[in-house]
C-alpha cells in the first residue's frame, strides 16, 4: 500500500467520522427533545413563553428565535464592514510594519474568552452606549426598530448585538486578511496598470477574488454570534416576548436561555431546553450549508471551467 492510499483512507475515515458525529448529535438532540414536545400544550414555534415545568407544560421558541436572529443580524451588520475594513487596512493600505502590529493586536483580541467580553459589555459598554441608543431613538425613532417607549436603554438586544459584533470582528478580520493577501500580485498590478485607484483595484480584483473566503469568514463570525452563550446571558434581561424595539430592555437567545435555565429545570424543562438546542443546531447547519453552496458556485467561476 502506498502513501497516497493510506492518506486517502485516513482522510476518508476522518470525513465519515465527522459526518457520523454530526448526525449523532442531531439524533441525540431529537430523541431527548421528544418527551417535552409530546407534553407541550402550546405551539412550539409561535409561543412567546417558557413554562415547560408548569402543569400543563407550555413553551415555545418564538422569542428565542427572534432574539437569536436579531442579535446575530445586528452583529453581522456591524462586524462585517468593520472587520473587512480592518483587513483591508492591514493587508493593503498600511505600511508593512504597521500592518503587522495591527494584525497582531487583532489576533490577540480573537483569543479573548467571551466571558471577558460579556463582563466588559456589562460594566463598561452598556453605560456608555446609553447615549447612542438615546440618539437613535431621538433621530431615528420614526423607524420602529429604533423607537424606545420606555426610555430605558440598557440590557437590550441592541447592546447584545454590539458586544457580539466586537467579539466576532477579530475573527472576521483575521480570516479576511489572510484571504486578501492571497490575491495574486499579477492581477493587482494589472488593475493598477490600467489606471485603477487603490479602491478601484480592490473592487476589481481583491473583492471578486476573495469573495468565497469573505463569505466563509462571515459564516465563522455568524456561527460564533448565533452560539454565544455567556456574554449574551450576562447582558440581556431574558424576557420571553418579541419586541421589535431593539434598544429597549428584553430579548433572549437560544444559547443564553439554555445556560440560564439549565440548573433550575425539571425533567420536562431539560427536555424542552434540548428541543430549543435542536432548533439552534438546525439553524447553524442551514446557514453553513447555504454559505457552502454560495462559495462553491463562486469558486467555479474563479477557476474558469
Amino acid at each position, binding site marked *: 500500500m502506498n502513501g497516497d492510499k493510506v492518506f486517502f483512507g485516513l482522510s476518508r475515515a476522518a470525513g465519515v467520522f465527522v459526518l457520523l458525529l454530526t448526525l449523532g448529535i442531531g439524533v441525540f438532540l431529537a430523541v431527548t427533545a421528544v418527551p417535552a414536545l409530546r407534553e407541550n400544550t402550546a405551539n412550539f414555534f409561535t409561543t412567546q413563553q417558557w413554562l415547560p415545568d408548569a402543569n400543563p407544560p407550555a413553551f415555545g421558541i418564538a422569542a428565542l428565535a427572534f432574539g437569536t436572529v436579531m442579535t446575530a443580524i445586528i452583529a453581522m451588520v456591524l462586524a462585517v464592514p468593520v472587520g473587512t475594513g480592518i483587513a483591508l487596512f492591514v493587508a493593503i493600505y498600511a*505600511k508593512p510594519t504597521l500592518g503587522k502590529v495591527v494584525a497582531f493586536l487583532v489576533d490577540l483580541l480573537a483569543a479573548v474568552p467571551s466571558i471577558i467580553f460579556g463582563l466588559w459589555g456589562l460594566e463598561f459598554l452598556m453605560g456608555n452606549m446609553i447615549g447612542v441608543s438615546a440618539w437613535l431613538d431621538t433621530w431615528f425613532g420614526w423607524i420602529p426598530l429604533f423607537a424606545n417607549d420606555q426610555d430605558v436603554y440598557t440590557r437590550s438586544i441592541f447592546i447584545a448585538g454590539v458586544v457580539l459584533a466586537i467579539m466576532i470582528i477579530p475573527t472576521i478580520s483575521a480570516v479576511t486578511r489572510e484571504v486578501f493577501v492571497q490575491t495574486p500580485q499579477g*492581477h493587482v498590478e494589472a488593475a493598477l*496598470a490600467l*489606471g485603477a485607484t487603490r479602491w478601484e483595484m480592490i473592487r*476589481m480584483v481583491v473583492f471578486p*477574488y476573495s*469573495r468565497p473566503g469573505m463569505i466563509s469568514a462571515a459564516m465563522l463570525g455568524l456561527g460564533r454570534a448565533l452560539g454565544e452563550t455567556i456574554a449574551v446571558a450576562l447582558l440581556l434581561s431574558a424576557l420571553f416576548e418579541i419586541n421589535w424595539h431593539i434598544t429597549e430592555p428584553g430579548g433572549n437567545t437560544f444559547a443564553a436561555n439554555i445556560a440560564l435555565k439549565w440548573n433550575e429545570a425539571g425533567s420536562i424543562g431539560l427536555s424542552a431546553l434540548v428541543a430549543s438546542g435542536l432548533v439552534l443546531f438546525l439553524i447553524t447547519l442551514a446557514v453553513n450549508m447555504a454559505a457552502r453552496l454560495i462559495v462553491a458556485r463562486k469558486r467555479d467561476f*474563479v477557476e*474558469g471551467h
Partner: protein
Amino acid sequence: MAKRIDISDLDAYYGNFLAVEDVNLAIEPRQVTAFIGPSGCGKSTLLRTLNRMHEVIPGAYVDGKVAFDGEDIYAEDVDPVNVRRLIGMVFQRPNPFPTMSIAGNVVAGLKLDRGRKVKKSEFDDIVERSLRGANLWDEVKDRLDRPGAGLSGGQQQRLCIARAIAVQPQVLLMDEPCSALDPISTLAIEDLVRELREDYTIVIVTHNMQQAARISDTTAFFNLAAVGEPGKLIEAGPTQQMFSNPANKATEDYVTGRFG
C-alpha cells in the same frame, strides 16, 4: 495620439539597492523600441518607471525625469493614476482578471472612473474593435461571456493586449510578452506589435534577440558590470545598426550571442 518619451538622468531604486543607474534615452512615437540585455540588468525595472508602476513595490522609488511630450510624469502635482491611464501595459505572464468574462476583461479599464465616461452602449463596439485589434476576435466572438481564464496562454496574452488598447492609450509597454508562449502564439503577438506600431509608441522588453531584430525600429542595450551592481544603458540606436555594426564591444558580444 502617440507620444514621445524622454528619459533623463534616471536612477531606479528598490529600497537602498540601486537597480538602474543614470539612464538617458529618447523613445520615438509610432516606433517600436526594444530593451535588450542579460537577465537582471534592469529592463523590467526601467520599463515600469515609464508608467509609475515601479513605485507600487514597497520601498521602490526613482530619481530623475521621464517626460511625455515634454511633460515630466514625476512632477510633484502629477497623480500616478492619471499617468497609468495614458499607458497600456502588458506583463510577462498573461494576467486576465479571473472573475471576469472575456468581454468584461476588455472593458475593465473603461469601467474605471475616468474623466471621459464611456457609455455602456458603446461597450459592444469597443469589445469588437479591441479584440480585432489584438487579432483575437475570430477565436472568441462566440464566447464573449465565458471566463477569460479559460483561454490558452497565447489567447490570454492577446486578451491582455485587447484590454490594454481598449482604453486607447498613448503608449504601450510590453515586458517579455511572449516569454510564456509557444512559437505560434509568439508569431501572432509579433505580427500584432508590427500593426500596433502605426498608432502607438511601443516599448518592448525581450530576451530574444531575433525578436528584437524582427519587430523593433530602435534597440537599447543594457548591461551590468556584476551581480549586485546597477544596470546601465550601454547604447541605443536603429535596430539594424545595433545588430550589424554596434559601437560598443559589449553590445556586439551580446547580439552575436557570445554572452547573456
